[in-house]
């Protein structure tokens, strides 16, 4: 990979991801980021080792029921072991096609991306919902070359993971694997370059609110992005 990932989830999100305590929709974005980011792959392995060691160092739970573990042990060893437990075979890589472009989808997102909803298009921008969303709204977001998403404020939290191509905003430039995290009240105007389109994974906890001029007319359409 030529592009070095610059924007990472940060230690707190990574820890919650490894513990399995992060909300599933956010964890999906973090897992996909890790697929694209060698640095976080190592970090993730280190956190797992640390958690494993912590488990081994725990003070064991004292049981007031003597036979509890003995019964469990004899139940388990009465089950047939799986001798030839083959490793999961490498799944065929999943691609998503839009605007005559074919995008390769990272492993973590494959199963969800295969089930994406219908593309809805508005100018150079298109979205397709993923079935993952629970409290949060998860979708693929395609932005054509030379397109600007009007200046908007986030009513909730917005996670945007670049899957392919490049997007820029007031704070910098983001390429494949970069994770943008916007908190409520953050305002930005993301845009693509004239020669490169962009596919992102978007996780939103609340609709966007458009701020300037005529595009405020988009506010009734905010469900489109959500």
């Amino acid at each position, binding site marked *: 990979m030529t592009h070095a990932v610059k924007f990472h989830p940060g230690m707190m999100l990574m820890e919650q991801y490894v513990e399995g305590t992060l909300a*599933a929709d956010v*964890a*999906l974005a973090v897992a996909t980021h890790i697929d694209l980011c*060698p640095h976080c792959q190592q970090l*993730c392995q280190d*956190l797992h080792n640390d958690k494993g060691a912590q488990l081994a160092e725990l003070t064991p739970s004292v049981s007031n029921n003597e036979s509890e*573990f003995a019964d469990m042990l004899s139940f388990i060893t009465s089950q047939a072991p*799986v001798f030839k437990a083959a490793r999961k075979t490498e799944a065929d890589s999943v691609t998503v096609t839009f605007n005559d472009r074919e995008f390769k989808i990272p492993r973590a997102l494959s199963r969800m991306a295969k089930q994406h909803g219908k593309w809805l298009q508005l100018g150079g921008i298109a979205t397709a919902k993923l079935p993952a969303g629970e409290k949060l709204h998860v979708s693929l977001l395609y932005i054509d070359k030379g397109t600007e998403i009007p200046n908007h404020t986030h009513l909730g939290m917005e996670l945007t993971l670049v899957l392919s191509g490049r997007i820029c905003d007031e704070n910098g430039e983001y390429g494949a694997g970069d994770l943008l995290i916007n908190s409520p009240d953050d305002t930005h105007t993301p845009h693509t370059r004239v020669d490169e389109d962009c596919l992102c994974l978007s996780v939103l906890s609340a609709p966007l609110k458009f701020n300037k001029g005529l595009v405020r007319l988009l506010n009734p359409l905010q469900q489109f992005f959500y």
Partner: protein
Amino acid sequence: MLESTALTGHHATSQATPRMPDRMTISAEPHIRSGQWEDALTYVAVNADKAAYAELFSYFAPRLKAFGMKMFGNEQQALEMVQDTMLNVWKKAGLFDASRGCASTWIFTIARNVRFDMLRKKQSRKDDVSADDLWADGDYPEQEESASDKWETMLMSEKLAPHFDALPPAQRLVMQKVYIEEKSHQEVSDELDIPLGTVKSRIRLALDRLREALDDTRS
């Protein structure tokens, strides 16, 4: 208690006093031989060795229960998690690969996945995100270790001292031994009775944390 204030330089000389002796006398518990659980998993995988499994079980089941009690806060679910996890350990021991990490790491990931899927199942959505989507089963290539070298020199900087104090205790202890007492990774592993891989992981995690803390103070 750790005297990690040594990083500020005030106690740098007194810190050099060796602390080894009292470390040597602490093992009242039976000593766990390094590699013991990894070997046991191999016996289970190859022979369905019940004796080896029983040893693993008697060590990990009560600890998994303690972990489950922390995560679920109730005994019934904690025990369900222990049983599912240990059943997977029995059935899937053949999938364990010691070159990717130690036994406790592998067992932790199984427990984490079991717990995650238990919580998701309650909501009964079959298209939903599953543990298999989220955790890649350690299939990533190893990275080279260059990052730690670069940070070694930075560590003595006074700026780092408060962040060093704020590290999680297990990471701080390892950092203390490596960077202040200047012990080798292997010595630290022997002394604390934790796997070498865990020592390396804790060092990298601590370095990442310190780097993040510095980045935050800079911006």
